[in-house]
């Protein structure tokens, strides 16, 4: 990482880094809160609008459906009305007497117009229970319109209606037929007026311009008035409507989409209209907009209040969090200073940025230190490997040398033992050639031989055990004792040997003098302590007696010590040897009679590492 990263002082990031985190957090919270409010407001408003729109549309569709259904019924009513009229006596009487009427006096066939209800229509008391009849036309059997009742309306009917084709009469017979005359759609309903034998004498045509009055009249029974119009489906233009000022004929349907909820499109699919027209209802969306506006406004203010509370709560939380960040930053700086790695030149301001930079620097330091340590470690490992290799090599050499020396030592011990054995054997041979009168010499030789034997035993033990430094004293003392008893032909049941020897390993320097001391003591006991008819017990005890000090206690239950024995000026070689060997062992001893002989010797022994030996 470049140092510039810590100290860069240019650009927007620099500017942002200079702002403390608390201020930044507050600004961010307010910004995010406001943006979220705006976004949510848009989404929720859309959702509410959509939902309201769906709800409204469902309601309005119902109204529209009702309006459409009523419109259809109104058209259908023409069928009922015309059938009632043609079955009414008034028209039949009138047509029956038609020869007397002015129709045939009127050669130029001028149409007679009636503003008042003519006699061929039922009385007003009957007619007012029907819909308002706009035009009623009496057509003679040749298809000429003879009389027209126009009531409140003007006389100006389209020429195509005043001079109807047979096809028009046929199409409007039995069904309400809607067709366009000029720019205005007309509903025409015709029926023949027949004589009793079925002879057509005339036709009655009810004609209604499908204009705003028609719409108004058709929708009178509905409580919820809706604007409605007939729209030409091909062009999408209004043909006629219930309110020509708001929905003028010729206006395009699409232009009303903003101001009205348009619904209820439907064909006249009973097939009576030859026009491509749809019945469309228009619901002004002011009410919907007002209601949705009111709901949205309330929703908006509630949401704003909620957002303000949320923003403040968040600010409080953030302030608390950033305070801890500041504390942490101070601690990190303080810790870095202690380590001497603090970057005082880091741009002040945003605590998290400072913390981040300080951590980055620390990481960098740690990384670099780690790399160095790894390098050292690698070097050390290399050194250790080298040294280990050397040591192993040396060790192998030493081991080889040691093995050689051990072999050699073993051989030496073996040879020493053999030599001592030879000397012992020589002494035995020599002893055999000594005559009985020279019993003392023989004894001396035997003593010497036993001493040599004791020494040989040491070497035997050493090479037999393959351990040239340590001698198991217990084993050795037992061997020496057994050897001596065997050597002096002592019956096994004559002398009982009790041994209480601690598990102690001595070096050869200690073991040989000790062995020779015991050799002297045991030989003495065998030779003197027990007369021929007496059995004896020899007890040997060896224990630790302090730092590198040991105590040997030797006792037999023989005849005891003669009175003339002087330890200071010994007359026997045995005592002399014991003294000499003890001196070698820095020891001192006492000799006394205690139901036999008892020797207590304290000496300094060189003992080896027991654990090693035991292993």
């Amino acid at each position, binding site marked *: 990482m470049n140092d510039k990263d810590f100290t860069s002082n240019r650009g927007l990031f620099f500017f942002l880094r200079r702002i403390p985190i608390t201020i930044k957090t507050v600004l961010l919270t307010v910004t995010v809160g406001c943006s979220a409010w705006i976004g949510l407001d848009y989404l929720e408003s859309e959702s509410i609008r959509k939902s309201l729109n769906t709800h409204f549309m469902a309601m309005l569709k119902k109204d529209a459906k009702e309006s*459409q*259904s009523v419109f*259809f019924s109104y058209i*259908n009513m023409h*069928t009922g009305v015309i059938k009632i009229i043609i079955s009414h006596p008034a028209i039949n009487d009138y047509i029956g007497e038609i020869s007397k009427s002015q129709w045939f006096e009127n050669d130029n066939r001028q149409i007679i117009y009636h503003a008042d209800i003519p006699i061929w229509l039922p009385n007003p008391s009957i007619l007012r229970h029907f819909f308002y009849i706009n035009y009623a036309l009496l057509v003679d059997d040749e298809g000429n319109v003879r009389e027209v009742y126009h009531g409140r309306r003007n006389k100006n009917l389209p020429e195509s209606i005043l001079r109807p*084709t*047979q*096809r028009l009469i*046929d*199409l409007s*017979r*039995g*069904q309400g037929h809607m*067709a366009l005359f000029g720019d205005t759609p007309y509903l025409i309903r015709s029926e023949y007026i027949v004589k009793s034998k079925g002879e057509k004498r005339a036709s009655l045509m009810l004609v209604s311009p499908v204009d705003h009055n028609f719409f108004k009249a058709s929708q009178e029974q509905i409580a919820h008035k809706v604007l409605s119009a007939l729209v030409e*489906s*091909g*062009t999408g233009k209004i043909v006629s409507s219930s309110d020509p000022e708001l929905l003028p004929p010729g206006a395009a349907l699409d232009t009303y989409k903003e101001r009205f909820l348009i619904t209820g499109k*439907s*064909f*006249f*699919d*009973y*097939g*009576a*209209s*030859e*026009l*491509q027209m749809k019945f469309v209802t228009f619901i002004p969306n002011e009410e919907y907009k007002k209601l949705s506006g009111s709901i949205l406004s309330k929703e908006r203010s509630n949401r704003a209040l909620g957002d303000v509370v949320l923003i403040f709560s968040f600010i409080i939380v953030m302030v608390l969090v950033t305070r801890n960040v500041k504390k942490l930053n101070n601690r990190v700086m303080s810790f870095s200073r202690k380590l001497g790695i603090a970057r005082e030149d880091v741009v002040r301001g945003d605590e998290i940025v400072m913390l981040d930079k300080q951590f980055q620097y620390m990481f960098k330091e740690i990384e670099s230190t780690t790399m160095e340590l790894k390098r050292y470690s690698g070097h050390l490992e290399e050194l250790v490997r080298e040294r280990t290799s050397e040591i192993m090599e040396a060790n192998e050499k030493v081991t080889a040398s040691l093995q050689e020396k051990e072999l050699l030592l073993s051989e030496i011990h073996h040879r020493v033992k053999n030599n001592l054995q030879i000397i012992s054997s020589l002494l035995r041979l020599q002893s055999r050639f000594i005559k009985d009168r020279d019993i003392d010499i023989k004894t001396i030789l035997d003593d010497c031989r036993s001493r040599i034997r004791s020494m040989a035993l040491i070497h035997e033990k050493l090479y037999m055990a393959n351990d040239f430094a340590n001698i198991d004293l217990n084993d050795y003392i037992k061997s020496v004792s057994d050897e001596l008893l065997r050597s002096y032909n002592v019956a096994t049941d004559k002398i009982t040997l009790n041994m209480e020897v601690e598990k102690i390993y001595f070096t050869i320097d200690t073991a040989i003098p000790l062995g020779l001391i015991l050799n002297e003591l045991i030989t003495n006991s065998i030779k003197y302590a027990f007369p021929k008819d007496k059995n004896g017990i020899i007890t040997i005890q060896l224990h630790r007696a302090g730092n590198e000090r040991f105590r040997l206690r030797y006792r037999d239950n023989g005849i005891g010590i003669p009175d003339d024995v002087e330890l200071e000026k010994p007359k026997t070689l045995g005592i002399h040897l014991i003294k000499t060997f003890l001196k070698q062992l820095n020891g001192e001893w006492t000799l006394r009679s205690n139901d036999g002989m008892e020797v207590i010797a304290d000496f300094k022994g060189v003992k080896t590492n027991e654990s090693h030996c035991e292993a």
Partner: protein
Amino acid sequence: MKIVLSAVIMFFFILSLTGAQSNPLQGEMFTDPFIISEMDQEWLERDIKYNTWAKDADIAVSLDQHFYHFFLPFIDKFEKDNNLKIAVEKGTCGISGGLLARKEIDIGGFCCSPGATDRLPQLRFHTVGATSLTILVHPDNPVNNITFEEAQRIFQGKITNWSQLAGSEGKPEPEEDIKVVTRLHCKLRPGHWRLLLDREDLFGPWLYEVGSIPEVIEQVANNRWAVGGFESIYMAYYQYPQKNAPKALTIDGYSPVNRQHLVSGKYPLHFIFNITTWEGKGLENPKAKELADYLLQNVKHIEEKYNIIPAAELMEAGWKFKGSELVGAPE
């Protein structure tokens, strides 16, 4: 003599084609194809002139709502394959009739057999096929079958309660008043509901007459004891599907969804779909003729859900044709 003989033969031919019904309440199935509406000279001399909705089109077509959906894909393909602009208007028989009468379209589509006023000079009708008309009841209504006579009496208002029916499997029908709903469309055209009762005056006074197809279906779907007539299978189940889809009754045991029952004429109520073409100078549009031929050839490929029996199949089953127009039921 020859003229007299010809006149006699023609008379009997026409008599057989118009298919006089044995049941006096039933209306005609077809109109006389030889009777053409009289039109004035101005009309006869007028050429085809498209209205604004078909401006710049190569072909102008008006199709009745019943077969607008199954023909539209074929028209689109024909338009694409031939690089044409075809203006198609979805309408009714009345609208097709009106547009043809005003000479504003090349091809008109009718869900019914043509009425006398539809037969214009130089206009030729070509039968597309037939589909059954259903008598619908609520799905929970236990009635599944009625006789033709019972159907007539129900719509006449002479049977006003379900319990008045003979009942099926020995069980009495429910003691509930019947609400009769229908749409008496195309009153001047033969066939359709007129195959049950010829005139609206024959329908009972309690008939609830509605103005559109979905109203019939909705009324039946939402009224357990209603009976509704007379809509096609496609309209009742696909075009205006309902949560409680109405149930189509069998008549005398013949089902409206069984093609054989319709082809054999045993199922008595049906629509005959026709399209028209013009012949003559100023009227004929070769591309429109090609389109009409293409549509007629592809009737056999119309999806099964439309339940259309193609004209060729009807012809094979003995229905009578004049040219390509179906004009008579099988013997």
